[in-house]
């Protein structure tokens, strides 16, 4: 933090963090309340298990004192111990099962709530949010919480076990109990300190591993550059440095482990030494039986794991709390774009063409201080096709985003068929607008499902018709599994032009009132582009179409052209009219052309 905070600011921040934390815990409590029956059952099982577990050494003691030393009923004692074995076995299995199942279930439900919340958040939120951040909320942060929940029933039975064992030891021989127990709190302390110190160390190792991964990744993705320039040695030296860093950080972590782990092992042994020394002499003096001495030994070993676990749960709890705060940050964000309280419905299609779009004195900026559109008004009749032309940054694509209500205007209105888009249900509005975005996004799914995205129940004919219109049908048939070929990031990789043609088919299947093509054919092979444009004319006839033109070629698709300049409509007319009358239009066109055409001019 470079900025210096005033006292009040610090106070405000701390208070904010405090509310976040308590909100986070509230979130966890609410989630756990849903599962309270099973969690209580788990706790009960844990307590029972602890009691039986504690009874085993007690019975061993009786067996030695009564059965072996006094020649008593040995078989009976052996059977009792065996019976306890059955009980502790069954109960420990149950405890484990309940703890893990419930924690996984809580994690599962949390993840679903998080996902559906994020998916419904307004686009403005996603502009700022990083995918990686949201991913780690739903994966590693939830794992921290799961790790904590699983420890709840286990910790409970551990606490019971510690109390019970301590009580028995004191009842048997208070002096020996004190001597034997002295080293044990240090086990707990060491475990706690170990957890605190190893966590940052292993994070440092992970950070170094991530850096090495970067070098590897870029050397492999950029292999043509590396090979082309013979830069193998340069990259190797980078990698060597990262590998050395990993070794160094790993050894730091190893040193932390080496200073705590053996200590945690040795401390209980010191207790056993004390029991043998002090206890042995007390037996010799007749203050203690041999059975008691042996039981003491066993009890001490029973304390080791619970003490270690309790030491660790403190650290786990703190990590879970931090994770909860981060999750709560997302969950408490409200969507800024929501359905109206009393939505209107769009007029049905009659003889009049539908799909009229109107922007009325719209003021909008992604940052309100720097408006992108100012006093922007335009009207598109139903069924008309229009091209929006403008220099880079003139706000062409913003028009689409406002129509879709990805953002709301700061002032002014946007209408679809005469109804303010804010008065419509979001799903109603968006189902009637089909957009082919500038950067084509496909899903990791079959070609069929990608095309039928907006209408999952679309029939085969409908899908193929759309694919034919967008010029996708032919190459789809060439794919290994035709329409069933899985495409997208992890599937069959398509060229940029092929991807765009699938995206166009997707928009066609949606059968929208308004079709928006945002530079939809930029990556299509020039020799194919003409073909697609011809096909598009069929789709566009009788349908309102907005073409966001980044290149001169696409303008030809539209009836009229709107020239956008500095956030306002600078001119409207046909392409030929504007070329003839508007100098600015010619300028913008020229800047869009390829250099070769510049020379021709």
């Amino acid at each position, binding site marked *: 933090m470079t900025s210096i905070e005033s006292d009040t600011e610090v106070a405000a921040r701390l208070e904010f963090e405090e509310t976040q934390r308590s909100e986070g815990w509230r979130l966890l409590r609410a989630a756990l309340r849903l599962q309270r029956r099973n969690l209580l059952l788990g706790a009960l099982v844990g307590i029972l298990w602890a009691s039986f577990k504690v009874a085993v050494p007690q019975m061993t003691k009786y067996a030695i004192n009564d059965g072996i030393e006094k020649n008593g009923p040995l078989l009976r004692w052996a059977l009792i111990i065996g019976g306890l074995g059955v009980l502790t076995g069954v109960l420990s299995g149950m405890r484990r099962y309940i703890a893990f199942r419930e924690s996984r279930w809580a994690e599962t439900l949390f993840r679903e709530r998080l996902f559906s919340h994020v998916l419904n958040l307004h686009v403005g939120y996603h502009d700022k949010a990083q995918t990686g951040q949201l991913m780690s909320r739903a994966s590693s942060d939830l794992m921290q919480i799961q790790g904590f929940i699983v420890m709840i029933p286990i910790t409970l039975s551990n606490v019971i076990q510690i109390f019970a064992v301590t009580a028995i030891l004191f009842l048997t021989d208070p002096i020996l109990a004190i001597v034997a127990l002295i080293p044990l709190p240090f086990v707990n302390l060491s475990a706690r300190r170990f957890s605190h110190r190893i966590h940052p160390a292993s994070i440092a190792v992970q950070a170094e591993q991530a850096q090495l991964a970067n070098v590897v990744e870029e050397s492999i993705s950029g292999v043509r550059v590396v090979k082309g320039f013979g830069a193998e040695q340069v990259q190797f030296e980078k990698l060597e440095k990262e590998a050395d860093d990993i070794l160094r950080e790993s050894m730091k972590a190893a040193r932390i482990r080496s200073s705590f782990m053996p200590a945690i092992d040795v401390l209980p042994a010191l207790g056993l030494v004390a029991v043998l020394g002090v206890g042995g*002499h007390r037996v010799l003096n007749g203050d203690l039986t041999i059975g008691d001495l042996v039981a003491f030994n066993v009890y001490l070993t029973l304390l080791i794991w619970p003490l270690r676990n309790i030491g660790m749960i403190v650290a786990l709890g703190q990590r879970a709390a931090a994770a909860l705060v981060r999750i709560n940050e997302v969950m408490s964000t409200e969507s800024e774009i929501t359905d109206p309280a009393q939505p209107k419905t769009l007029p049905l299609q009659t003889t009049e063409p539908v799909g009229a779009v109107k922007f009325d004195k719209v003021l909008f900026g992604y940052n309100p201080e720097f408006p992108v559109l100012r006093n922007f008004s335009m009207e598109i009749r139903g069924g008309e096709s229009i091209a929006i032309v403008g220099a880079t940054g003139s706000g062409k694509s913003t028009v689409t985003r406002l129509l879709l209500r990805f953002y709301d205007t700061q002032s002014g209105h946007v209408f679809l068929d005469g109804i303010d888009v804010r008065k419509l249900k979001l799903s109603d509005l968006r189902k009637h607008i089909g957009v082919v975005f500038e950067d084509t996004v496909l899903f990791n799914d079959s070609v069929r499902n990608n095309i039928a995205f907006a209408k999952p129940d679309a029939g085969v004919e409908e899908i193929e018709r759309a694919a034919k219109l967008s010029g996708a049908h032919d190459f789809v048939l060439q794919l290994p599994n035709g329409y069933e070929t899985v495409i997208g990031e992890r599937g069959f990789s398509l060229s940029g032009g092929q991807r765009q043609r699938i995206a166009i088919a997707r928009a066609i299947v*949606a059968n929208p009132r308004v079709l928006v093509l945002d530079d939809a054919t930029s990556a299509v092979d020039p020799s194919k582009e003409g073909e697609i444009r011809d096909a598009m004319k069929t789709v566009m006839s009788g349908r309102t179409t907005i073409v966001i033109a980044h290149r001169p070629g696409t303008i030809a698709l539209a009836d009229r052209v709107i020239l956008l300049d500095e956030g306002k409509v600078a001119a409207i007319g046909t392409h030929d009219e504007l070329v003839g009358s508007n100098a600015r239009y010619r300028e913008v066109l020229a800047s869009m052309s390829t250099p070769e055409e510049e020379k021709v001019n």
Partner: protein
Amino acid sequence: MWSQGGVTDEDRLSRAQARTVIGRVFKMAAPFRKTMYVAFACVCATTLCALAGPLLVRRGIDLGIRGNDPASLNVSVGVYLLVALIAYVFGRAQFLYLNRTGESFLRVLRLAVFRQMQRQSMAFYDRNKAGVLVARMTADIESMAELVQWGLLQFLAAGMLIVFALVLLATLSWQLTIVALLVMPILIAASVKFQRDSNKAYLTVRDRVGANLSALQEGITTVRVIQAYAQEEETIRKFTKSNRELFKSHEHSVRVSTWYFALIEFGGVFASALIIGIGGWLVHRGDVTLGTVVAFTLLLSSLFDPVQQLSQLYNTVQSAGAALNKLFQILDAKPEVDEHPGAVALPLSGELVVNGIDFTYSGAENRALQSVSISVGVGEKLALVGPTGAGKSTLAKLMARLYDPQVGSVSYGGIDLKMATMSSLRERIVVVPQEGFLFNGTIRDNLRIARSTANDEEIDAAIAAIGATEHFATLPDGLDTEVRERGSRLSAGERQLVALARAALVDPAVLVLDEATSNLDPGTEAEVEHALERLMAGRTVIVVAHRLSTVQRADHIAVIADAQVAEYGTHAELIAKGGRYSALAAAWQKSQVSR
């Protein structure tokens, strides 16, 4: 936790493979063999100390307490204390030495695998997906870190503990040892079954976690499209389905472990019941002492715990073995394009001649090039055009020896490229790929990829040579600007400028260009075009062309179709000929502005 690894049936190593892998690991670990032996000795010492404890308790009870000899009791206590302290010292040492051995091994492995990957030719990178190669170098090696930090130690310690404990128990009382071993077969059988089931469960969980993460990521990155088509509900429904599948696989894997841990818990108590029952009877008969019975109850865990640990570690060790096997396969791969032992430097200038070459990509059925011959004179510009996949990029790559032809040769100044030293080849012929690929670091660092020894003046000169000095001066830190991951801080055009400056830094005689298919932003496009022109001036150029403007500027045009040179000539000649080229030129013309 209890299951950190798993291995699929196809990856599981055979006995012979396992032996080879272990042998190679030891060979690679040779430089730090001493550390390894020290580590091993420390593990032995710690294990012995752990076993000495119960023995000393036995001695204390039998000789000290029952023998009513306080002095003897004190001796036992004193030695016990000493042993505990020694155990601590060796415990620390074993951690340090084992970790040092393991981590040093991983470092050597990382360097060796990376170096070998870099020696491979392009064909290797065509065969292996980038993601898989990255995974070998990262996830596969990291998966072994766990083993190095904990597993190796536990594995060694557990194995030793079983052996030592058995020997010890047998010397104390053979009768009670037999009793203790009665429970062992059940325990071992359960462990083997658990290891198999948990391996399977782990693999399912791993797959489902992967699928779920992908669904999650896809949902977040495509949120705009989902919202634009109002498909939130449907997407959430699909995600919930994959999320519930994940939950089921978790639940299954817990169930697998539940009965096993229940049995282990029962087995431990049951065995001590047996020892007490039968041991007590033996004490009555006078066959064993009470101290021995007590020592046995204490030592039982030394016998049972390691069995349990070994079974849990087994999967981790197996998956590490599988990972190592794959890494060794990379180490064994012979680079296809390598320097010839008697290689000579290429001359400073000369004609680039392709002489009757055939080329087939490995694994492909059809030839990518078939008896292609073409020559490019000094300072000549050749454009390669033709349909996608016809072989024009392949030809360009062979002309820069990114691959070697199966038949025929490519020569420069009369010397076969196969006989040229790699360094002179890379200095003479430079390939500039379609998109400017940038590495993490500053712009200067990115230029030094081309020539690591270049000083700042030379870099400035290279930037000036392509006329981009002013452009980069406008960046906040000029040429010292950090370009971030993949150069994300720069525009596509700026990245291309950096790529061209790299070529200028090498100052090659021959440039091989792959023209971009998609357009850059109009602003920088002109600058890139200008830089290209300056770079091409006075050099031999082979360009894979996608635009009319580029083709028109070339001295000669070769149309590559169906793996062969279909037409060759100047623009005017080929237009006049009215063949493939004139048709292509017409299509290009049409896709420009409709006039």
